[in-house]
């Protein structure tokens, strides 16, 4: 039959090997591309989902956080939770919803201390420097104090750094006198205590990611 059966087999083997390699590489690249586009979508999360104190900017956070939940375990107030599969947040990443359980701004910041990665920045040693978001009075037409329904100071009372991050400003308008809860964005850490305690059924003050709120304005109103 063939003169050089072994070398021919070898060539055929090599061709088959190469073909299978190309096949595998192609299939895997496809999977990779699908995953990468999925990752792009997973970058966005609901505005109500806030990251723990010291969290890197979202893009870096999603590369640094290994989704171990050590921050969750060491949070004494059960504020933090890990996103489970199927939630519109990258699965396994920690977040909190201020209206459910806000961050109590622990002096010793146990969540940051527990984090084994760079995801929660160890340079954050003073919780007042934290930037989980910024509170905004969204319900200017619902806030009991602004609308004059009552003399409510729920958000102001809740703030761990009241008089710095939030004040009640006296406002006079057409003979009407009322107090406006006023957030001072430089000081606000985004802990969400105000949002959690707001007395209106749908919180009239909400913590939003800072990127959604303009930086160059010192405070709401005024």
């Amino acid at each position, binding site marked *: 039959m063939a003169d050089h059966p072994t070398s021919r087999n070898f060539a055929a083997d090599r061709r088959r090997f190469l073909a299978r390699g190309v096949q*595998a590489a192609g299939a895997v690249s496809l999977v990779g591309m699908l995953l990468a586009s999925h*990752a792009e979508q997973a970058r966005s999360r609901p505005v109500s989902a806030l990251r723990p104190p010291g969290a890197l900017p979202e893009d870096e956070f*999603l*590369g640094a956080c290994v*989704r*171990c939940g050590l921050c969750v*375990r060491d949070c004494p107030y059960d504020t933090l939770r890990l996103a489970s599969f199927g939630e519109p947040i990258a699965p396994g990443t920690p977040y909190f919803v201020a209206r459910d359980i806000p961050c109590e701004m622990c002096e010793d910041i146990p969540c940051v201390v527990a984090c084994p990665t*760079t995801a929660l920045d160890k340079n954050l040693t003073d919780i007042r420097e934290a930037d989980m978001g910024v509170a905004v009075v969204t319900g200017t037409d619902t806030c009991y104090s602004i609308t004059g329904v009552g003399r409510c100071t729920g958000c102001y009372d809740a703030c761990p750094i009241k008089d710095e991050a939030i004040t009640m400003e006296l406002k006079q308008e057409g003979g009407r006198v009322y107090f406006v809860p006023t957030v001072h964005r430089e000081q606000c850490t985004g802990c969400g205590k105000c949002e959690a305690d707001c007395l209106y059924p749908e919180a009239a003050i909400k913590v939003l990611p800072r990127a959604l709120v303009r930086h160059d304005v010192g405070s709401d109103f005024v």
Partner: protein
Amino acid sequence: MSAPTSSEPATAPVTRPWWLRQRWLLLRRASQFGLLGLFMLGPWAGIWWAKGNLAASTWFDLVPLSDPFIVLQSWLAVGAVTSTALLGAGLIAGFYWLVGGRVFCSWVCPVNVITDAAHWLRTRLRLPPGWRPQRSLRLWLAAMCLVAATLTGSLVWELVNPVTLVQRALVFGVGAGWTVMLAVFLFDLLVSRRGWCGHLCPVGAFYGLLGTASPLRVAAHAREACTDCGDCFEVCPEPQVISPALRGSGTRIVVSGDCTNCGRCIDVCPDDVFRFAQRYRYRPPG
């Protein structure tokens, strides 16, 4: 029945008690569930020996452990890694380098329980093998995980990784995590025999590479006693690793990093061909 009295290899299988035929399997299940139990002791009983999950954990508030594959991806993604994560990854990598990388698969990974269950059922139902992609596909997928992390700067694989998703679901709350478990089960049951762990899982592939030189190995020590019954090939999750050691004329050690050191072949072989051995000090019989 009486045991053979001579020193010749028994040709007729000796009936061994059932626990001896299942001993490594039982130990393995104890290890898998025990480890899961240790992680659940905190959330369920308030005993915090272990915190975290398979991605990273802290033991007794002191020892950090972390998954080297995830730490590697994270490092590629952000270009930085903490000494804690590095230490944790080093401890885990060192451990598996010694005992065999895929010991992670057969003794630790919770997905293995699911895929073993699927395999058990598909054997009972006599289902055909189905889709059989080349086993090297998992290496390509592992490479893809690293490339994707580098290019996107994000832990892309962790969006879908069944290994961490399943364990996290059990330890931190299930959510829709059960769909992942079901998907892996159905894939292995209906689409591909030993499909997930044997052909696709990049985590297993990574640990396989990690354990290529491990001292702890299975040896086909008494291979002359083999009666070609095929029980070991039937039960082995990576049957291709057995032939060179059992049928070859070279080393009796199962050297492939794909071997999971599950010990199932030791359990089922009626002629006691297999045993665990120390690869670098191994002396063949005679």
